[in-house]
């Protein structure tokens, strides 16, 4: 493990001021509910989650409750939960129950901790709420050979089992795939995932493909950003930065409130202690911001 990975060629860095993005409304609130703790250590993880990475720790039920209260006063529309692996958080199901009382919730999970019993409990949580409860299960290939080198030996089988357990309980997750195999984003690549899901008996297959962020473990796997991959004031589109998710989201971790789900391992991405501290504009001063802009990324479903 190298300590510092050099970034690009400084000679190609671009001049100019760093643009700022306004928070036009706080629509989507994220919780880094699983911290950076994960039962996997995927080679492309942009927050380098692993069983021993405690950069961020679990967010407690108490902290979630306080934040939900503050969020209601700001008119938040939807809640997302990620990690790490959210279901490693021992309070996760209680956190979902509390959230579904006030709004719709989506959980991003690796699918490994979705036992039939848990899936049945989650289904009854969903049935008992006015709001949608949605799941996103990550996988990186349509078979063990394409998935396991990225997510770990033997994970394909377990992920498929988790998806089946959700399906058997009446929950239909969105399968989330990164572009780690270029093919995944193509029509033919997507069809391979749809085929897999149909084989599992899922009649309404749902799929989301995400580009990779060249930070964290992914920077080691595929190389870090080049120095020219930075946003500058001149890049500001005519219609502004409303297409960036940081114009409508914030991320709560055990250590405060960050601007977005991508930059949690950058202390400079932290904007404050409470939501009310983070309503000011944010400087798009990170190469990952370039990815969001160029690829039109939203971590939302």
């Amino acid at each position, binding site marked *: 493990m190298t300590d510092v990975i050099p970034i690009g060629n400084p000679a190609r860095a671009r001049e100019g001021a760093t643009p700022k993005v306004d928070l036009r409304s706080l629509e989507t609130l994220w919780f880094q509910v699983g911290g950076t703790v994960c039962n996997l250590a995927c080679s492309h993880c942009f927050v380098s989650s692993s069983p021993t990475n405690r950069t961020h720790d679990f967010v407690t039920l108490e902290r979630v409750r306080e934040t939900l209260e503050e969020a209601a006063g700001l008119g938040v529309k939807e809640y997302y939960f990620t990690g790490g692996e959210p279901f490693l958080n021992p309070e996760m199901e209680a956190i979902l129950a509390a959230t579904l009382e006030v709004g719709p919730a989506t959980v991003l999970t690796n699918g490994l901790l979705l036992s039939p019993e848990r899936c049945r409990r989650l289904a009854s949580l969903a049935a008992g709420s006015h709001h949608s409860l949605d799941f996103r299960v990550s996988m990186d290939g349509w078979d063990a050979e394409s998935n396991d080198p990225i997510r770990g030996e033997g994970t394909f089988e377990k992920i498929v089992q988790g998806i089946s357990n959700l399906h058997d309980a009446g929950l239909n997750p969105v399968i989330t795939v990164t572009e780690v195999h270029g093919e995944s984003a193509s029509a033919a690549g997507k069809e391979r995932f749809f085929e897999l899901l149909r084989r599992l008996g899922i009649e309404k297959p749902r799929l989301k493909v995400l580009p990779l962020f060249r930070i964290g473990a992914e920077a080691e796997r595929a190389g870090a950003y080049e120095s020219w991959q930075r946003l500058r004031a001149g890049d500001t589109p005519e219609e502004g930065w409303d297409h960036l998710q940081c114009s409508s989201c914030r991320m709560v971790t055990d250590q405060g409130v960050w601007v977005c789900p991508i930059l949690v391992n950058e202390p400079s991405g932290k*904007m404050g202690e409470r939501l009310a501290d983070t309503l000011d504009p944010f400087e798009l001063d990170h190469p990952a911001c370039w990815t969001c802009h160029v690829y039109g990324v939203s971590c939302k479903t």
Partner: protein
Amino acid sequence: MSGRTPKEIREQRRAERERMVAHRGMATWGERLVPLGEFRRVAESAGRALSEKERAAAVATFLERPADGVPVEGPYRRIAVFGGVYNNHRALEALLDDAERRGAEALYCLGDLGGFGPNPEKVRPLLEQGAVATIQGNYEESLASGREDCNCGYTDPRDNHFARLSYGYTERNCSEAFKGWMGGLPTRRRVAVGQRELLLVHGSPRRINEFLFESATPVPFLETLLDQERCDAILCTHTGLQWHRRLPSGRDAVNVGVLGRPANDGRTNVWYALLEERELPSGKSDLDVELVPLAYDHQGLAEEMRREELPEEFVETILTGWWTTCLEILPSRERAESHY
């Protein structure tokens, strides 16, 4: 795993184990590993920590919106509001009859006149006949400004494929005069029903193509919007699925649904809303919201769509009441209730 020797598999497992414990006692800071304590120390002092008083002020400033200055129409006793005509002139014709029969004093359309159905030019004379006050949907905005797509807000390639087909058809079959008229429509209206002020928008008060689905539009969010807009009710369309919610504050949020295609429930009727102020026994009043199912000549529409060579997927929706496209936008609850 084909093609790998046991030794290679052992090697990979060893590398994986190493990767999984590499962070022991360390934090990830961008592309570096640093001692956990160092990350936490820097993170602790990063960002702002306002006082409680400053926080209250920051929230108030953040939520403050200037008044929109839109004049209030009315007051009316009873109005009919509909959206999403999608070229379905047969349903629009049925609406004009039904709303008149039910005593609506004024008719309002929340936009998206085109797309999906046949013969866009048949819509405008009906709007004029009914003296319908119309606001701009994303469709009108796109057609009037020469956009290449409908800006419906889909993210799925299949949804976008069908959206392009129907937008292309409407764009080709719509006169320049009609498009010009669309460009002159307002994007919001305010209407008094009795003592109550209703805000009429297409998607949401803040974005023309925002989806407000029932299971994904929580109460605190709506209360905040109503506070910001200083109104007693918000009426919207855009999703294609109708719902009404009475808020704890006594105010209302209504998605009036669409006239253009059925509501993905296996029934062929479409929906609109009737609104009037109702006196309560307590001496107070509330807004009586009736979501009205509307039958129309859907067989005739299907035949017309086939003559116009519109996608058979669209015709199926008209004939069965189940959506075959635009499914990816549905939240999990609405998707679970749909056929496809």
